[in-house]
Structures are given as C-alpha cells and as structure tokens.
C-alpha cells in the first residue's frame, strides 16, 4: 500500500522477524524499538496490564536498560566471560577466570569414592565448588537433527552403521528429519558387535567427526555435527524457505508480470500461483494448468508425488510429470510457466507451444533473480548432534554421600550442571538426564569404555554452603590453584563466547 520511500534515515529493525521499517521519531509495531536520530534504539520498558481473576494491577516486566546497562533477554545473567575453560598454570591463562572441566578428569565406576576433582573457587565474591568427573553412560543416546526435506527413510526404520543397527528414524520436524541413535538397547541389549558399533558411532558423532549411516528402505547419510548433511551422495545446502504454498505467498509479487503460472513443487504442499490466494489477489488469470495430487484449498495440493530425493523432497526429477492436464479452453500458446522447488535449487522455465505442450527454454533474468532469492532466504542446512545421558546413578555418589540430594539440588536449580563447560538441558522428571549440543563442547570431549559405554565429562557447580548441606565430600575440596598446578596433563581450551560462564549460579542457566 503506502510504501514509504526509502530514505537514508529509515531504520529497518531486525529485533524480530516483522522487520519494521521505522522513520525518524517513530517506533515499530512493538513500540519497544524506535528510530532515534537514524539509529535503532530500545525505547522505554514495556508495562502490561493483566486482567486476571484478581484484576491484577499493572505489572512492569522489564527493568529499564539504562538501569541494568543491558538488554533484558530473559536471562538475568548478563556477562559471558570469554576465558579459558580447562585450568592450567597461570602463565597459560593469565589472570582470566578458570573453570575445571570433566574432560580427562577420569573416574571410577561405580563411584565408590569421591570424584576426581572437587574444586573450590570464587565467583562474584561467592565461594563455589565444582565437582568434576567423567561419567560412564550406558544409558545414553544421540538425537540427530538433519535439516533436509529429502526422504531419509520411513519412520521407525533401522539406521545402520557397517550393517549393524545403531538407532532408528523418528518423527520428522519442520524442515528436518530426526534420528534417534544409541540407547541402552543397542549398546547392551543386542549382539556384542552391535553394541561396539553403536558405541563407536556415537563416539565419532559426539566428537564432531563424520559418520556414514544407511537407513533401511531409505537413504545413505553422511553426518557430522555443524556440517551440511549428505543425503545419497548429495550435499544438502539449504533448508526449504517454507512449504510450496508459503513460497507462493512470499514471492508472488516478485513474479507478477513475468509469468503466467508458477508451480512450487514440495513434498508437503505444492503451490499453484494463479489458483492461490496470493495470485488471485494480484489479479492473475487462471492458467488452466492442473497439477496432480489432492487439493487442500485453492492453489494448495497434497501428495503431488511420492517422497524422495528429487524436487522439493519429492521423487520428481522431471517436473512436468506432476502436471495432470492443461485445459485448452483456458490455456493459450505462449504461456510462461515456472516450476521451482522450495529451496530454489531445482527450477525450470517452460513456454507453451502451439499444441499447448510445455517446452523448456532459457529462463529470463528476472525469473532467475527470484529463483536465486528463494535460495537466499533458505537457512543453511546443518546436522545437529545432541548427546543425551542419564547421570542419576552411582555417579552421584562421587559428589555426595547422600546421592538423592544431588538430584534434588539440580532440580531446585541450586546446582548447575555442565558438560565440558557447555550448558545442558536437564530433563524434567526423575534422575539427572541431561542433553547437550556437542558443538558447544570442546573438541574430543568424549571417550568410551569397552562395556560398551560412552564416557562424557560432567561438572556440578554450586555454592560451598549448598555443597556442605547436601552432604558433599568436604574433606576432598581443593583450591583451584592446587588443581591448576597438576601441570602438563592439563589442556587449555578456549571457552566458547556464546556459552554462559559455568560458574554463574545455577537457575540462571538459560541460554540467550
């Protein structure tokens, strides 16, 4: 409608996906951000009215940035101190704060004696204790998120490494396929070889190495944490920008005037521009080109083809195969048809000939531009590896004489759990079941034992008085300087700046 003319003073707010364009002196849709003299500026704190059952009075949610000196991000802990993780001698780390991780600390199993390192240190003037150990996890697994719409295999199908079942395909999520690997049944419930291969597969993935897996009735996958997945030999570069219908909605205006029809091929919903609400709004005439599949609502079709590794996660390699019919009463020679996938990776340009047959021809520059823009708007496809392990067993005895108190302390968020200094998600319910993104941990943080089981670093950090209260091994607490002097066995790893500093009190563990 009234598009404001671009101006050098116009600020595009990137605080949220609405991407408001804000002129000087104005605020965006949220009234939280405004354009103050050409600069995007956080405005006054928001105040909300909550008309609850008690007709609650006005509640201010946010403390003004001017007071705290920082943006409120839901996390009361602000500073991320970019310093070394593993402790070492002072010359190596200078005066930077130090945190001892469990990596290489060793352990015994079952934990009949205190953990290898129980370290005292001070953080913000508070005496803290970190119990450092390596856990032996027989109950552990890896959740893999693969950013692709390509068909990796049926749900519940076995996932194999070197022919041994190491996990299965689980539910697909938006734009991603998920695998569940490892777990106690593959590790210890199957054959000896199955257990060993499962252990090695998890170890490699957790240590950020590449692994090749095959899915029964599905694809061959090469997976590595933080890298694009390879599906059947094809490197997946992008996640789809949206379903076919969403793609139509997003780019309809940019196609207008250059095309007579656009079909966005997608395994979930295939979009047809002139039939779609977006095309009709733009006053586009029906093209008479019908696609296969089941029509959901105008311009949106389910099941135009089988799932596969072709266009848009379908098995389509020749896009014309999804065209059901071309109505001679509506279509006319010379009509221009774009067929494109939801990532823009596959695209073809057709012009109807005198017999209304689509003939592939060179794509005009204006169209190539929009196809490229679809690709530009896709996020890079990645493989994410999350390690899940249960630390609710005897490992706790290495921390306290009264193990259940450690569990309670973690649940009460008095004790902060980290893995190699990385933040973890502690699952609700019983036990201390943690999940951690291996990319946030130092390299080669995991080991294994022949049981077979994975060995993972784990640290419990809490205030010294809380440690005493839960029955901690107080006699074993050693000052940080003493541990740091162990000397050459120590490795210094740089802390990842995006990780919260592990010594900040538990309960503040939310990541930004």
């Amino acid at each position, binding site marked *: 409608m009234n598009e404001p003319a671009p101006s050098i003073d116009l600020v595009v707010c990137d605080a949220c996906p609405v991407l408001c364009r804000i002129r000087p002196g104005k605020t965006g849709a949220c009234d939280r951000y405004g354009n103050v003299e050409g600069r995007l500026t956080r405005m006054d704190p928001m105040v909300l009215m909550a008309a609850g059952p008690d007709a609650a009075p006005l509640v201010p949610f946010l403390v003004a940035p001017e007071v705290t000196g920082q943006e409120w991000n839901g996390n009361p802990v602000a500073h991320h101190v970019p310093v070394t993780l593993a402790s070492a001698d002072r010359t190596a780390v200078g005066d930077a704060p130090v945190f001892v991780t469990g990596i290489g600390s060793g352990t015994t199993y079952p934990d009949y004696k205190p953990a290898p390192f129980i370290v005292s240190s001070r953080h913000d003037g508070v005496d803290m204790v970190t119990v450092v150990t390596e856990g032996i996890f027989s109950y552990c697994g890896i959740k893999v998120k693969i950013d692709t719409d390509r068909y990796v295999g049926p749900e519940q199908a076995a996932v194999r490494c070197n022919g041994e079942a190491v996990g299965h395909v689980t539910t697909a999520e938006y734009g991603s396929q998920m695998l569940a690997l490892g777990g106690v049944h593959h590790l210890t419930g199957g054959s000896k070889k199955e257990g060993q291969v499962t252990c090695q597969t998890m170890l490699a993935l957790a240590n950020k190495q590449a692994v090749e897996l095959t899915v029964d009735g599905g694809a061959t996958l090469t997976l590595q944490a933080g890298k694009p997945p390879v599906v059947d030999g094809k490197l997946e570069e992008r996640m789809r920008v*949206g379903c076919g219908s969403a793609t139509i*909605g997003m780019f309809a*205006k940019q196609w207008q005037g250059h095309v007579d029809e656009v079909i966005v091929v997608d395994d979930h919903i295939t979009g047809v521009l002139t039939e779609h609400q977006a095309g009709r709004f733009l006053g586009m005439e029906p093209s008479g080109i019908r696609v296969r599949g089941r029509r959901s609502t105008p311009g949106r079709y389910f099941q135009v083809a089988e799932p596969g590794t072709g266009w848009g996660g379908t098995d389509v390699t020749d896009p014309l195969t999804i065209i059901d019919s071309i109505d001679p009463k509506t279509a006319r020679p010379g009509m221009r048809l774009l067929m494109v996938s939801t990532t823009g990776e596959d695209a073809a340009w057709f012009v109807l000939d005198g017999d209304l047959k689509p003939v592939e021809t060179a794509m005009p520059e204006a169209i190539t531009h929009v196809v490229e823009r679809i690709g530009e708007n896709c996020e890079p496809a990645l493989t994410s590896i999350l390690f899940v392990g249960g630390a609710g067993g005897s490992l706790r005895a290495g921390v306290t004489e009264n193990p259940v108190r450690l569990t309670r302390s973690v649940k009460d968020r008095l004790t902060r759990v980290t893995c190699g200094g990385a933040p973890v998600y502690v699952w*609700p319910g019983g036990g201390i079941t943690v999940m951690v993104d291996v990319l946030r941990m130092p390299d080669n943080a995991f080991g294994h034992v022949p049981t077979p089981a994975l060995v993972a670093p784990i640290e419990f950090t809490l205030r010294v008085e809380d440690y005493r209260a839960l029955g901690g091994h107080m006699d074993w607490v050693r000052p940080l300087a003493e541990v740091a002097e162990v000397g050459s066995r120590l490795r210094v790893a740089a802390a990842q700046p995006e990780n919260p500093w592990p010594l900040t009190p538990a309960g503040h563990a939310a990541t930004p």
Partner: protein
Amino acid sequence: MTGPHFAILADGRRHFQHGPIDLVIEAFGPVTAVAAAYAAAERRFQAVLNELVAELWLLRRPLADERLWLDGPVARRMIAACWPYRDRFITPMAAVAGAVADEILAAMRAAGALDRIYVNNGGDIALHLAPGQRFDIGVAASPDPRSNAALAGRVSVLAGDGIGGIATSGRGGRSFSLGIADAVTVLAGDAASADAAATMIGNAVDIDHPAVRRAPASSIKDDTDLGGRLVTTGLGTLPEPAIAEALGRGEARAQALLDAGLIAGAVLLLRGRHRVVGRIALPLAA
C-alpha cells in the same frame, strides 16, 4: 534477531514475548496438567510470529468478498473473525491479538484437562472455563496500559456463558482507532471475534466535532494496515450531547452485532459516560 522470550513471573504466571506480541498466561488445575499446558503453550508460541510474518502482506489488505485461504492457523482465525465485517473497511489485522491468544489457548487445552486458563495478549484475552468455574474480570477504563486509570468495573464470566474471549479497543491502545471511544470492551465466543468486534464498535463510537483531532494513519506509523485513513489522535472537551450522540452510534452498532449473534455483550466508555449492551450484569463505577 531475537527469538521468543519465555519467562516465569514471580507469582508463577508465564510471560511470553516475541516482537510485538506480549502474552501473560495463567492456568489453574492439577499441577501436572498445568505444567503440560505451559509446555504446550511454549512449543506453540515458538513459530507464531514467523507464521504471521510470512503472510503479513496479505493480512494487511482489506477483506473483500473473496475468501482468503492462508496457511497459518492464526491467520485463519483472524480471517474467520473479521469475515462478518467485510462489507465495511476491515483488515484481518483487526483480530491479530485475539487470534494469537486463541491459538495459544487451544494448544493449552489440547494438552490436558484444566479448570481455568487465561491467555492475555495485551488486553485481548482468551478464556477457558471448565464446568462450574468462573472468572471475575476487570473492565479497563482505557486500553492504554500506561494509564493508571481505575478499572471501570468488573464482569463475571461463568462456564456455560459461551464466552471464550474478551477484548478492549479504543483511543490510546496499541492499535489505531477510527473512532473516539475511551474504551470498548467486548465479550464474545473467542478472543479473535471479541477483538474484531471491539475494533468495529470502537470505530462506530464517533462524531464530527472540532474537538476530535485526526491524522492519516500512515503519517504516524509506517507499515500500518490502515494506510491513509484518518485515525483519532486526540480528543478535546466534548459537550454532553456530542458524547451521547457518539456513544449512541456505537451502542447501535453493538446492538446490531449482538442481534446477529456475533458478540455476547459490550461495554462502551467515553468521557466518563458508558453504555452497556447485552446481558452483562456490570456494577460499573462510572
């Protein structure tokens, strides 16, 4: 770009915020069901803003006789709520706040059986009441959350009333109004319907008078769905007959919506005067 924020307020209520969306949520019932409902709300909230943004340019257009088919569940709620008003100027954005509240409420209800839930999206509230339950709700004297104006009154919503949403519109709110009402609070079957109706009744509370200051919406905020339409920017002193005339126009509109079954009731406030439409027993202070 920041993602959604999730916070637990000191009294246990949830506060969700993403871009312009601010929700305060509270659920009552068995502890496990409450936890499941909050988790479901959080899951659903993750994608709500992104879904809306994908179709925002369509949602900012005036509704016409042709039905929009959009992908986003919230977008569909917006269109359904605004559809009855398409003979006048309305864009689906008139129901965005209520539709988001309804969507989150639906996700929470699907997570388990709860006694009561409210999802408050900046004054547009989606409600759930199990049989026998009730909510007592304050009616705002102004939709401006910064005003410390006393509540104009209270209204009780009982299970079985057929009321699942309450919304307030008027001058000083987050959205522009074409009318001059201080506040119009509407009770309806869901929050999106209440939101759309409050906007339309608020627009109807109007009169041409030198005390009413107006400006094109686009001169105040970029990207507004109202374009160059004149919105109310200020209100000087109105004589009593003008107040009565403006309130009367809004009341007539509200009565028509009540008769059409679109709302369950409405409270209209202007300069200390009020009108009540529908079977609301409302002990108003004003």
